[in-house]
């Protein structure tokens, strides 16, 4: 009898632990947000990355450099259709260049001549790049409306932009 009570007691404790821990674990499993790191805007002013927002709509963070050919191909192919992307999914693309002092003087002129409508920043000593553990550009991160990381993608192959648009559309509907 005593044994039985003890085991029921244990089961109850077990169940409570299970439910509590599941709740905590769920909270912990929440996706990552961008770290609290600063990058420079085109006027050289510092901007905190954790303050990036798009009014509850999805965002794409694209790491690139002026000397990186596939990066420019990716941003060019999205630029061709960017108006449509904004219309369909309300998405905003933030292009973060990792150019250092050698080439970062040329970011503004390159972006301007290509007519890109992206928000552009310079991660001039790779603080953000490093905080995210990125090894190479191009590198793309998709965030949902709450600023949580939904997908990451290393590299660029022509055609990857269609997949990216699908992901963004999916998030926008949720």
């Amino acid at each position: 009898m005593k044994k039985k009570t003890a085991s029921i007691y244990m089961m109850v404790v077990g169940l409570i632990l299970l439910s509590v821990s599941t709740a905590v674990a769920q909270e912990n499993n929440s996706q990552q947000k961008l770290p609290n790191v600063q990058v420079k805007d085109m006027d050289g002013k510092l901007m905190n990355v954790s303050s990036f927002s798009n009014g509850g709509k999805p965002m794409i963070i694209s790491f690139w450099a002026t000397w990186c050919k596939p990066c420019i191909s990716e941003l060019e192919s999205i630029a061709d259709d960017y108006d449509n992307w904004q219309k369909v999914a309300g998405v905003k693309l933030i292009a973060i260049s990792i150019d250092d002092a050698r080439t970062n003087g040329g970011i503004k002129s390159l972006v301007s001549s290509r007519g890109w409508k992206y928000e552009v920043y310079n991660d001039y000593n790779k603080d953000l790049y490093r905080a995210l553990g990125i090894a190479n550009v191009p590198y793309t991160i998709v965030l949902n409306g709450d600023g949580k990381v939904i997908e990451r993608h290393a590299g660029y192959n022509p055609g990857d932009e269609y997949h990216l648009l699908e992901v963004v559309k999916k998030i926008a509907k949720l």
Partner: protein
Amino acid sequence: MRRKIFIIITIAGISNVLQAQEIPGKLSGGLESNSQYYIDDKATQAKAPRDKVATNSYFTLNYTLKNFYAGVQLESYLSAMMGYPEGLKGTKLTHRFAGYRTDKIDITAGSFYEQYGNGFVFRSYEERQLGIDNIMDGVNVRFTPLKSIRFKASYGLQRVLMDNGEGIVRGADLELDLLDLLKVKHNWGVTIGGSVINRYQKYTGPDDDFPPGVNAYSGRFRLTHPHYNLDMEYVSKSADPTDINKNIFKKGSLLYINQTITTNKGLSADIVFRRMESMEFRTDRTQKDNLAVLNYLPALTKLYTYSLPNLYPYAAQSMGEIGGKVDIFYHFKRGSALGGHYGTKLSLTASLYRNLDTVRLKSKEGFSAEFWKLGPTELYNDVNVSIERRWSPLVETIVSYMNLRYNQGYIQGPGFGMVNANIAIADVLLNFDRKNSLRVEMQHLWTVADEKNWAAALLEYSYAPGWSFFAGDMINYQSKKIHYFSAGGAFNYKEARVSLSYGRQRAGLLCVGGICRMVPAYSGANLSFTYNF
């Protein structure tokens, strides 16, 4: 039965408790691993080392909890890949740091990266491909009482190979946005800034006047406007005798002026000028190459991504150099006569660098040079025209032509002369459909110097999302007639990337971001893996 249920629930409970005890806060980081397998190659005279397998690995782990952050990096060179500095060996936890960060203050204890201004007096950074990691070990503070006042102070030792070097570094930097501070509303912005940095390294030699401490000061001025940016920096550095400069007591200086002009009409330009003398700055005066370097002096020339122009890459001459670069971009709009249906992008670049007009002195100073005068020796000069055009949804092309003059003797050492080369490049991308594409690259270099003419071709096929394959060859067909072939493939899946290739690497200067290192010839296979979280 009941016992079974009990056990199941208990196990479920325990496993969930373990999960619940998962530390709060966020973890992020990444793994990068590069391996090579070497073979002997008679054609290029590349010899495999005794250990035919080499692997360089980097694992980083960052942790943040509200305002607190911490991290580590583990590096392994087992064995180090060919061409990396000899002292990179073994396995070690090379970075470890903890810090506290709010909008106003950021304090890091332990390993930290920092850059003052454009990095001409101080930049600690990592460039794994070059084996450079001059991270600092000490304390770094960034204080931002107002958005328009930014202050930094740093001190510590610098990493040299697998340990800390012996030179002590301390410095501070201040930047002010003047118009914002004076609350003047304007679409112009004016920023002034300044840095001071000191390096101390014990000196035990016989010279009583020898400076164990070296100071560098920098002043900066920046003007910003939606259509115009001006960025100027002047640096002065105290005498810093080293073995490399033959122990002269020459003060250093650097002037940098960068201007960017943009228009709404698709035309923009970037013009940069730099003059420097005796600007080499290390935490350890006995080191050479890319070791123990405290400041960042990249070559300010166009960074070419094709292989043949990179046979002759300019490297900045920190002892004395004067010159600049002009970049002009123009976008012929869609629908215009020259723009076609999709628009055409034109880019023009020219750069010119010469040495300084120096006079040898018998005093300890070693030499003197007139400030505003080009020296007699041409170091580097290039002119490049590049046109990028999309013809249809199927076809995109980039065509480039360039002429370069490269003083190989001055840059790479005695035994070489001046190289005058012309290069033509055609790069065609065929997008067959949303998944399949093929890129074809053809290059030719004409020169009568060095290894004479070169030809190169590359095919790259990609299947989105994820797969890509390439095969390429490069040959100096008038001289040694060596095929530098390579072939391989890569697979990307979300945050993971694996690539495998096989081929021949030519001995020469490998440059990333304008900083170069010499790499030996090798042949073999290369396997890389990157992942982050």
